[in-house]
């Protein structure tokens, strides 16, 4: 099976979906002439032309709203928001409009819309360019929120998202774009929205993660295997709907759980997962659920402060040792 980058998987999929369905179009800032701020859309303007690959002005509320309205009439826009931080000025269109239109109008109209955007922080981007807001959207009924960790899932979930008739928030990560993985050629697979996956089986502790933190969790699991600690990694892949059965089944098997996410600690994704585990697997737990998340500051620019504010392999290993303390 060919090994390609996460970026290539996204680029290939966008091109294939543009070729497959004439109602699919891409919209976003700098996605055409500039070739994409992170080169996800590289070459697509040349291949498909300006009708299908639409450069927008800096007007997120406006063009996200345009995409929602166009979707209501049958187009299938795939919008790129340069980073998730900029979606805040468009949040009215996503939360008050896209998420509600199908339900609120009694099912008469569909909103087949994808919004792709990288979330999280890397490389000293500072307070306003390093945030994780996927929980804001995962909170909202009517949206679907996915966050693939591997090139394989990126491709399969993006296909599923483009072909889905509901608004899908597709969370990417700058730090994942250059990561590599196996992706089959000539295989029209989709990864279903709403299903988590056990990315690595284990017996001592369950680590629940998504997106870049799944990659961190898999590295940690490999490292701890050398010490004889068997870590099971559950990759959420979808945040809404949330696949609680897969999480709970894993925790019932390992009896211990650590949840890791890049967002802020209070009210973040880890809180939701930990609450679900105590509700549905309380009697199976041999230790309190540990949460690893971002420190609650506007992310400072200074290199050391910035790095120390984000969860990483060390903080995950620390939490795993906490839940394993006393295990015989």
């Amino acid at each position, binding site marked *: 099976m060919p090994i390609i980058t996460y970026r290539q998987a996204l680029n290939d999929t966008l091109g294939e979906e543009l070729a497959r369905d004439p109602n699919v*179009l891409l919209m976003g800032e700098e996605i055409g002439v500039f070739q994409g701020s992170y080169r996800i859309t590289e070459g697509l303007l040349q291949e498909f032309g300006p*009708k299908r690959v639409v450069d*927008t*002005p800096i*007007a997120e*509320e*406006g*063009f*996200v*709203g*345009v*995409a*929602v*309205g*166009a*979707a*209501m*009439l*049958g*187009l299938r826009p795939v919008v790129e928001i340069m980073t998730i931080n900029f979606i805040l000025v468009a949040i*009215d*269109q996503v939360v*008050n*409009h896209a998420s509600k*239109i*199908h*339900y*609120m*109008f*009694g*099912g*008469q*109209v*569909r*909103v*087949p819309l994808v919004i792709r955007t990288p979330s999280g922080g890397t490389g000293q981007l500072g307070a306003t360019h390093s945030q994780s807001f996927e929980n804001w959207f995962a909170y909202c*009924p*009517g949206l*679907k929120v996915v966050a693939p960790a591997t090139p394989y899932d990126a491709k399969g979930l993006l296909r599923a998202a483009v072909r*889905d*008739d*509901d608004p899908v928030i597709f969370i990417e990560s700058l730090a994942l774009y250059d990561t590599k993985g196996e992706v089959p050629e000539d295989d029209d697979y989709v990864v*279903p*929205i*709403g*299903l988590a996956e056990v990315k690595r089986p284990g017996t001592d502790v369950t680590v629940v993660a998504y997106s870049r933190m799944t990659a961190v969790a898999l590295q940690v699991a490999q490292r701890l295997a050398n010490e004889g600690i068997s870590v099971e990694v559950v990759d959420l892949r*979808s945040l809404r*709907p*949330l*696949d*609680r*059965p897969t999480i709970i089944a894993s925790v019932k098997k390992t009896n211990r759980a650590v949840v890791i996410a890049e967002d802020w600690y209070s009210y973040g994704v880890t809180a939701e997962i930990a609450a679900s585990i105590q509700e549905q697997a309380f009697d199976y737990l041999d230790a309190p659920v540990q949460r690893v998340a971002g420190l609650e500051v506007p992310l400072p620019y200074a290199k050391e402060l910035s790095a120390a504010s984000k969860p990483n392999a060390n903080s995950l290993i620390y939490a795993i040792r906490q839940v394993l303390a006393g295990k015989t």
Partner: protein
Amino acid sequence: MAKVEDAARAALEREHVDDLKHYYSQMLLLRRFEERTSEMYVKARIGGYCHLNLGEEATIVGLMAALTPDDYIFTNYREHGYILARGVPPGPVMAELFGKETGVARGRGGSMHLFSREHHFMGGYAIVGGQVPLAVGAAYALRYQGRPGVVVAQMGDGTTNIGAFYESLNLAKLWQCPVLFFIVNNGYGMGTSVAMGSSEPDLWKKGASFRIHGEQIDGTDVLAVRDAVRRLRARAEAEGEPAILDVVSFRFRGHSVIDADRYRDPEFVRAGRAAHDPVRNFAALLLEHAIVDEAWLKATAERIDREVQEAIDFANASPDPSFEDLYANMYATPVPNTPGPEDALRAARINRGES
């Protein structure tokens, strides 16, 4: 003055009598529907917020008279009259206000969120400005797919102060979208007058820096509204040229049914209602020119009163939405790990104290 009257007479003579009667009937339907809606609200048959189109009948009927079945309409939350004038029967509209399963949005939307796909009535929206980019997007889709028609983005005067409006103007012009920005200018956004909220109180000028043509129109004159929309609609459809219509009318009552309207001088309101009642003025005009007689007006009023009463009866007799359908239409494409009828029923039993 004589000249004006002559012009009005000449204009009327060019009209089909049946059209004029139809406009009057529609305006009266809107008037009576809203008066009865207000009554039903006070009787607590209707909940939530409820905004009436009283005083805006000519604006609405004139707009709809100029549109074709290909066209699409997006409105704000003061939209009962728009969906009626677009041809949706009063029964399902009243049923929606009553929160019934037979309502135009199956009781999920309410007064502010009416919808009819069949009639291209693409929804009432209740976040000020939110519907404006949606309408531009619909127009974008028409252009993309090479379909005929235009899209109307209806809004109030207060909406012209929010960012979404300006982003929409820019995108509509930039991408040559066939959209009409239809501003129902009744002088007030809730209690804030146009002069208090807009540094440019001539709202039709607000497209100038986007190179969008704008016009002010007398929103109490059904024919003036219709003719302006027809003209600008044709240009939008043929050339992809958006336009702003600043349609001035008089709001008869407070912002919503429960607004006591304390910020407007009662004398101003009384005089405004006396001078600018589009329904009464149109009836007088039709009488004056012998297009209709008193007997026709009386018969029409009786017919419409009956029609509105039947709508109320229909709404009353309609079933409430079933709790097991709570999660129906949550998603258009089903996905795993979502709640279903059983979950809804269990939650309902607990909520009612039955479990």
